[in-house]
């Protein structure tokens, strides 16, 4: 069974983003970039499935600018067998990304797709669900446990009230939550080896996808800053402030 994983190039999660002074977007120049943390978890899960003999091949796919090759090489250093870059402008919309994945899923006859539940830049949380709808395949979103059993996969999902387990027929789409696994680090020899693994570049047009604009970005602003308050010296002072000043207890 082939497993497809999504890899998105995003700002490193430790870096605090700055808004451009003209408010057109955030400023990512000279910013450290990385694989989206949820995508890293997806890559790890796919590699574990390969190590367990469930997956025969792991294909990493990214939709983004040519700079995303760096994150695809990282995915291959971690254990993905090959990679496909769908070259697009920065900030491709979720529906267009999902359409590109749908075409690749069909062309590659994929058994399981594992994507991050959301990217930490646009915070949309959409692509996996859209891909499932477009391909008419079942979905297990926000997964904290994935177990493939023959022609089906059991997915334990993190929901608002706790955990929910669903059973899906393959092919299926899974999106990862934080606690699915702890991703490994790439080893130096594997980083060298990954340079020789195949990385194919395609465009939306190659895939027969018309990338339409659905949502226009008008403006990006910094949020209203919250003013830090005061330090209190004791529990008694804290209680007094909460009672008399803030009036919340």
């Amino acid at each position, binding site marked *: 069974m082939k497993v497809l994983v999504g890899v998105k190039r995003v700002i490193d999660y430790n870096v605090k983003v700055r808004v451009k002074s003209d408010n057109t977007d955030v400023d990512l120049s000279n910013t450290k970039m990385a694989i989206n943390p949820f995508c890293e978890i997806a890559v790890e899960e796919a590699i574990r499935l390969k190590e367990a003999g469930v997956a025969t091949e792991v294909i990493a796919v990214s939709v983004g600018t040519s700079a995303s090759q760096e994150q695809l090489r990282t995915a291959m250093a971690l254990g993905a067998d090959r990679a496909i870059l769908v070259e697009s402008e920065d900030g491709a919309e979720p529906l267009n990304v999902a359409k590109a994945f749908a075409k690749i899923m069909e062309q590659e006859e994929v058994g399981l797709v594992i994507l991050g539940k959301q990217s930490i830049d646009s915070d*949309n949380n959409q692509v996996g669900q859209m891909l499932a*709808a477009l391909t008419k395949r079942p979905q297990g979103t926000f997964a904290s446990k994935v177990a493939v059993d023959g022609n089906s996969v059991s997915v334990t999902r993190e929901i608002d009230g706790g955990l929910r387990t669903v059973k899906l027929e393959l092919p299926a789409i899974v999106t990862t939550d934080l606690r699915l696994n702890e991703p490994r680090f790439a080893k130096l020899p594997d980083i060298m080896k990954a340079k020789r693994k195949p990385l194919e570049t395609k465009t939306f047009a190659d895939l027969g996808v018309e990338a339409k604009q659905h949502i226009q970005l*008008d403006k990006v602003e910094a949020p209203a800053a919250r003013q830090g308050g005061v330090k209190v010296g004791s529990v008694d002072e804290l209680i007094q402030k909460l009672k008399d000043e803030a009036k919340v207890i």
Partner: protein
Amino acid sequence: MATLLIAEHNGTELAPATLSALTAAQQIGSDITVLVAGAEAKAAADAAAQCAGVSKVLLAEGDSLAHDLAENLSELVLSLAGDYSHVVAPSNSVSKDAMPRVAALLDVGQLSDITAVLSDAQFQRPIYAGNAIATVTSKDATKVITVRAAAFDKAAATGGSAAVETVSAPAANAASAWVADELSESERPELTAAERIVSGGRGVGSAENFALVEALADKLGAAVGASRAAVDSGFVANDLQVGQTGKIVAPSLYMAFGISGAIQHLAGMKDSKVIVAVNKDEEAPIFQVADYGLVGDLFDVLPELTEKL
């Protein structure tokens, strides 16, 4: 122009988030239909009909709608969406699962987690864990929207008298089946609905020590929350996580104990009305957003607070 609002409910009552999403819907336009879907949801539909500003309630009941399976729920919404310019839901684990499916099947984009309505097509939503606010315009004929409940006041749950119409439930998708739930049992208020939240972080140290956090929460009638570090360390269940990828909360009072204040955590609670932080590290970033900070050992402060309140 008409809006279809998908209710969050437990079968008998509407979730407070539904009333916040109703406020957002009212800001979009005045013709609002509420869809209440579930295995059994008559009582919740009747509650929706009482809400001010609701024109009509659609009730869909059936086995295929039990357990919120996105494959079935999205089919139901899709079958109704043709009559509406906006399809809106409060942002929660059900709508996050189902609404992007609706958008894809309508061949439109989705606006996730809006925090402000500027016009019937222009909205604001947080990006980069709330470190930037994007103003966006939907170019699509149908606008599919999830609403961040914490950003909107709750609409009145009374004053309306809408008719309740029944619509049929979709056939169950054969490729997806519910197996089991493992839900947290708690007498405490639900995190996203709570007026007060007491949260613990890595500094709490262990699952046993979390009893100190819970004791204060119970004294205050508050919900218990946690940082990612506390959840990852196994101190508490995952559904208590507050932050960018967990619950987004905005209670009247948020008390953080042993939480350093990573940007991902701040993204989930910085809109709280009053924030209290207790941490032994006076340089902890949480103090930058706290209205009241106390530098001290939470193992001294928590019992003292619980006793004196």
